[in-house]
């Protein structure tokens, strides 16, 4: 088991809203988990806890069987890569330098990347198909390319699990599909993957498991094709009368909103 979280409770302030209540989940090699939930439910918070960027108020998280409380940031980073939502950094590093930062867990504090690190980065850039962007400034490429660069950086980290925070937000349809395909191919290669998304179709397309986080902090997981039902969707998105229909053309269930 790569990630085992047990009974996580979390709120940002002492008497504030309880964002997570007794949340438990497990993730094994090659598994994809999509996390659905309304705005502000705490999907990103949950990812932050799993990546040990925040500490839960109670509960334990084990990565590869080891309690995260006893792990250094470096150890966590060599198991978990975190792909944040698109952002613009203050300085215009080249795509190569940006991806190279993924090698950080392997590099000492007074060291610089070695030629092995350069080779790994070059390999990852070619695998993802953005080798020709290597010398471009990260701040000057398109949103879709930036997403790919961030994924390349996550791979350069050589993790066991990759957490994506809304990987399809801000992307056009073409790039959304591209990203979903990359995510699926990653799981086929054995990475454990968690994504948060606002689109139930993405969870259906990715298959695997789906976790549903509601506004009260309750979290429920199950196989995507069992847990995603009209009832669940209408609970999560507030009685919107969403329809779930089978569409023969694409050979899967699709989620359709009603007419306005």
């Amino acid at each position, binding site marked *: 088991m790569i990630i085992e979280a047990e009974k996580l409770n979390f709120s940002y302030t002492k008497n504030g809203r309880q964002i997570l209540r007794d949340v438990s989940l497990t993730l094994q090699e090659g598994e994809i988990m999509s996390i659905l939930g309304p705005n502000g439910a705490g999907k990103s918070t949950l990812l932050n806890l799993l990546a040990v960027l925040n500490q839960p108020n109670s509960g334990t998280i084990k990565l590869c069987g080891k309690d995260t409380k006893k792990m*250094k*940031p470096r*150890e966590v980073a060599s198991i978990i890569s975190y792909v*944040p939502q698109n952002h613009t950094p203050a300085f215009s590093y080249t795509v190569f330098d940006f991806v190279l930062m993924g090698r*950080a867990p392997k590099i000492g*504090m007074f060291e610089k990347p070695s030629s092995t690190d350069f080779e790994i980065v070059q390999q990852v850039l070619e695998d993802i198909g953005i080798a020709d962007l290597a010398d471009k400034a990260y701040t000057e490429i398109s949103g879709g390319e930036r997403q790919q660069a961030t994924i390349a950086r996550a791979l350069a980290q050589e993790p066991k699990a990759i957490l994506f925070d809304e990987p399809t937000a801000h992307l056009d349809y073409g790039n959304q599909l591209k990203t979903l395909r990359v995510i699926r191919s990653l799981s086929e*290669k054995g990475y454990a993957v968690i994504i948060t998304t606002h689109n139930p179709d993405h969870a259906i397309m990715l298959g695997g498991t789906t976790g549903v986080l509601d506004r009260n902090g309750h979290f429920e997981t199950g196989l995507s094709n069992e847990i995603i039902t009209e009832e669940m969707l209408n609970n999560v998105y507030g009685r919107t009368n969403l329809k779930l229909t089978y569409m023969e053309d694409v050979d899967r269930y699709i989620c359709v909103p009603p007419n306005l």
Partner: protein
Amino acid sequence: MRILDTNSKKKVNTARSNFYALGLDFLLLVILALCIIMALCAGKYQVTPKESLEVLFGELLGKGGTYSEMTKNVVMGLRVPRIFASVLCGVTLAMSGVAYQSIFKNPLISPDFLGVSSGACIGAAVAILMGLSGLYLSAFAFIGGIVAVLTTIMIPTIMRSDSNIMLVLSGVIVGGAMSSILGFIKYVADPETELAAITYWTMGSFSYVTLDEIGSVIWTMIIPMVVLFAMSWWLDILSMGESEARSLGANIKVIRNIAIACATLMTASSVCISGTIGWIGLVIPHFARMLVGPNNTKLIPAAGLIGGIFLLLVDTLTRSIGVAEMPVSILTGLIGAPFYALLLYRQRKTLS
């Protein structure tokens, strides 16, 4: 690693850009050497380049030469310490500017910002009020700078916040308090003698620099320089922001504190020998970034060299033009401000 299981060795095209940065550093070194020779010759007492080199090598190698006693005194006694000091201060101020900008992931921050300069000024002003001078004055300036930074770093700790914005605000608080204290010291200072000395200190000057003074702070300049360069790659990571740096496995607290300590030691040391000199820590990192990009491993040496050249030229100007010598900060401001505006204009697209 599963996606990388091919063992083929890949040609990596970063060699070209490394080569470019090294070439630029070499070019800057040559320019610096030329500027030093020029600075040895420039001034009220004219010396030819040939003479200046004769004196320099004659004295350093202990051979002596055919030059006059007067020329020797001007070159070795007056100009060499000044040149040495101005280059060192330029290098340290520019490098600490690079470090601060990366630590706070903000290209608009400079060494003056954490209250280092104003703290050091208060230390110096207190020493002047107490009638101290020379090394005591340097020591006071040093302690003042360090105290200011420690206060700035402690405020977020007391508020139990790890965030950069808290540190920035804390710098604003300390800087504001410091300038009021400095104002008070000026207010109570004797306007005939002490006030002038304090004012002179706040505007920066290399006129009274001695080799002893430089010797007393040289290690607190050079050791942090080496440490900063050694951790330059991690400064890149730090500049990506806290949560990203942490998700990449960085021990933010340790890296940030070491980097801040180094940059502060460098700034405080430079204030010790020259008083406060503005603009260099802000403008030079920008200029260097335009030449070699934001990668700190390339940026730190390039910015240091450019800073050294710039401050040497400015100091040579202050003692060459006009009748009386001008404080350095006046010229760095007059040159730095429009130059900074020009840089911002050229970078307007990437900054917005």
